[in-house]
């Protein structure tokens, strides 16, 4: 669903969505309005550019047909910014996130993360880049079920060849930061969904990345937990100065972002 950017259009749309529950619709309008304000506030950069995409294009081949997942996307995201990618399914928001995360290579255009053109990096260097510069958070958490929470948190450190004492200390710090200090020796199956996602965020932060990319981080959580996760992202951003990019369908999440980038049919729609 595309959330209209015009307040009046938004109001009408939200009334329809909420089944003409006026209170909910008004709250949604306020939220959308705040988001709208933030959307226009990005014109004033808060710090150096962390993510820069120019004329980004991604084309997939499905059978004999070529599908343009992204077309001519250009954007800049600054240090410490909290940006939400929104848009309907198939609009290209996840593809954009993956290109930014170096999980996939663009078909055209350039993408620079922290000054590095990641499309030119070898697989080995790209892995190292992902490990040190980016923290991924997934909708389904993806914690290793047979490892303790502490070891799950330490995995990026393990791949970075961090010393055990160092990553153990760091996992304790992060667990405390996300409120899981008492759960370090537990296994993921012993945690709630919210706790698992907090653990996943802590894991993403282990190597002190400049950028956190979260793909539907609240998509598998109830609203309270979803709210808590957004709070956590906010906290992370403020405490660590980390740039947060979130792909979401959730208007509440988008409303909490500094900036919402709406994608439609592989292009930035607003």
């Amino acid at each position, binding site marked *: 669903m595309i959330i209209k950017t015009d307040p009046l259009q938004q109001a009408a749309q939200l009334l329809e969505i909420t089944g003409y529950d006026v209170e909910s619709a008004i709250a949604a309008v306020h939220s959308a309005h705040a988001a709208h304000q933030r959307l226009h506030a990005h014109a004033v950069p808060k710090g150096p550019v962390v993510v820069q995409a120019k004329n980004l294009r991604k084309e997939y081949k499905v059978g004999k047909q070529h599908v343009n997942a992204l077309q001519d996307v250009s954007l800049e995201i600054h240090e410490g910014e909290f940006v939400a990618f929104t848009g309907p399914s198939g609009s290209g928001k996840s593809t954009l996130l*993956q290109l930014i*995360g170096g*999980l*996939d290579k663009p078909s055209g255009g350039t993408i620079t993360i922290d000054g590095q053109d990641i499309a030119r990096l070898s*697989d*080995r260097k790209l*892995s*190292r880049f*992902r*490990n*040190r510069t980016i*923290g*991924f958070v*997934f*909708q*389904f958490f*993806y914690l*290793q079920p*047979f*490892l303790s929470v502490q*070891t799950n948190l330490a*995995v*990026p450190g*393990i*791949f*970075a*060849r961090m010393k*055990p004492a160092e990553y153990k200390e760091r996992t304790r710090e992060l667990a405390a930061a996300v409120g899981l200090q008492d759960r370090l020796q537990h296994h993921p199956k012993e945690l709630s969904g919210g706790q698992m996602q907090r653990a996943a965020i802590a*894991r*993403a932060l282990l*190597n002190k990345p400049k950028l956190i990319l979260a793909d539907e981080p609240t998509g598998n959580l109830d609203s309270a937990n979803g709210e808590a996760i957004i709070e956590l992202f906010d906290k992370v951003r403020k405490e660590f100065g980390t740039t947060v990019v979130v792909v979401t369908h959730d208007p509440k999440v988008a409303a909490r972002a500094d900036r919402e980038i709406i994608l439609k049919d592989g292009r930035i729609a607003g």
Partner: protein
Amino acid sequence: MIRLREATMLALTKLRTRKVRLVVTIVISGLLFSVLAASSIGARGIFSSIASFNKEGLSNRFLTQGNSLSSGNVFMNKDIIDRASAIYKDTIEAKKTEAKKLGIEYNSENDRPPYNEYPGQNGTKIRSIDPTQPAAVQAIKEYNTSHPQPGMDEFKKAASTYHASAFYESHTIPYDTSGSQLEVLKGGKETYDDTKSANNNGPATGLDSFASNWSLMSEDLLEPFILPGESLAIGKDGSIPIIIPISAAEQLLGAKALPSSASASDRLERTRQNRESIKGFTFDACYRNATSASLVNEAVTAQQEIDQNKNKKDYQKPSLQYGLPAEACGPAPIIRDERTAEQKTLDDKQLQFDQKFGATEGMQSKIHFRVVGMVPDANYSISTDVSQIIKSLVTSSLGSGWYAPLSAAATNETVSQLFFEANTQFADGGSLYFADFKTADAARTFIDQQNCTPDYQKYDPSSGGDPAQSCIDSGKPFGLGPYGSNSLGLESAKKTFQKFFTLIGLGIAAIACVIMMGTVGKMIADSRRETAVFRAIGAKKLDIAQIYVLYTVFLSTLIFLFAMFVGLAIAVYANHRWATDITQQALVAYNAQDLNKAFRLYSFYPPDMLYLLGITVTAGLLSAIFPLIRSLRRNPIRDMRDDT
């Protein structure tokens, strides 16, 4: 690459997934490899046990034995038959003349020809020499004299080229066709029946095997087999030291044979008792030449005839009757002589006539023996029983038979006569020559290069050919083989086992690889999402490969451990089942001084274990290659998306 500790931790988590499949893989692959483990543990146990017994007997030596192949095919030899016919003809003429001169009757039809004749193909007649006929005996002797066989000198010459360090010989009692008799006096008593013979046909056991299985052998070869406290010196009482089969020892001791159902430990205990009791035990054997044996037989027959006719009024007892000897191995005495003067004169003339044509006076002699050792009995049965197969590895030490030192022939005239002057036609057929080599390789090379197998196709004996001629023509007149120790056999068995172990190992590894590929492939496929997540958070392809390689190593190690466990269990079971039995055999075969020495059917040989571990891990790694490459080539995004 990530640190080994962390890689190990991540790899171990893989072992906790798909447990049923994992266990099935470990069990099936493990059972396959357990065949190798069991064969290694078992075979190495046998080898190491044999090696421990090798300090006994001749087993630590590299001896080869050779027998002359040029004994000649005397039966169909035309020259011998022709010569025998000529001697026969001359003898008939001479006998006729002599009979006429002495005034006695002579019927030449009673003298059978020196050959047997039977129909051949296309109406021809085939002649075969009769080795018991005096003319044939003489012709064969002449032939053997004019065709001397390669003996010790030739053997030494051949073996010296291969740096043999010492030479020995043995002679088995020759087959005597004259009708002489040789028997062990059981309980000091002689048996008088017409079935005994100096050369019993077919396999005999116990005391009955003496006449056909007695050998004289170089002292050096016998020395390791004498029992503690015994020596190979001729006794002050003239007793000849002799090593005898277990069954003969039991008969001499009057021990009741153990039932076939007797336990291995009972048999082992019996062996101990036998060894202790038989040491220094003395016994006599009686040798009668053909005339003496004939008189005893005549006495037996006459007495039987008298007994059968005692109720017949018109029965007339023979005018000259011999009786049974008054003492064991004594001469048959004349117990009644009612011949007329004329009859006596006629008999004297006949005796004169017979002696002119080869008849000898009656002679009988006791040979006094002293038991100094025991050897296992010959095993004539062909058995596929596991213990028999293993036993065959430990029975080759000295051989099975009766063994006295060669010096006995020098000190005892009867022995010398029996072995070297007997009325034998098979020149040197029972002689063996031995060479001692310093290394197994030297012995083996000697055998490989100098052994000859007679060509029975080119020289068909039924057509008068002598297969041994093929060997004589090639300048290799000896049949050669390892002797006295299983050092060569053991070396060969080890090499064969190694080949078997290596090849079968590779085959099993290939099968296990396919089985493991299923499990490893499935596990890698199942872990695609995890791999994708790891890749997203910074794992390099090499890091992922490292985790799966370690997983495969752990899986292979578990398979190896399972295989070792099953293999060991099999070997221990085999040990429980057969070890005591084989120990008993080995103690006797090697004349082990330490009776507490035991044969074990299990032993760990580290190189085999390392090889087994190596091929198991290699099979595991090979099984992981394709699934891993396929997994690493996949797009992690797709794997994350597919899984959601």
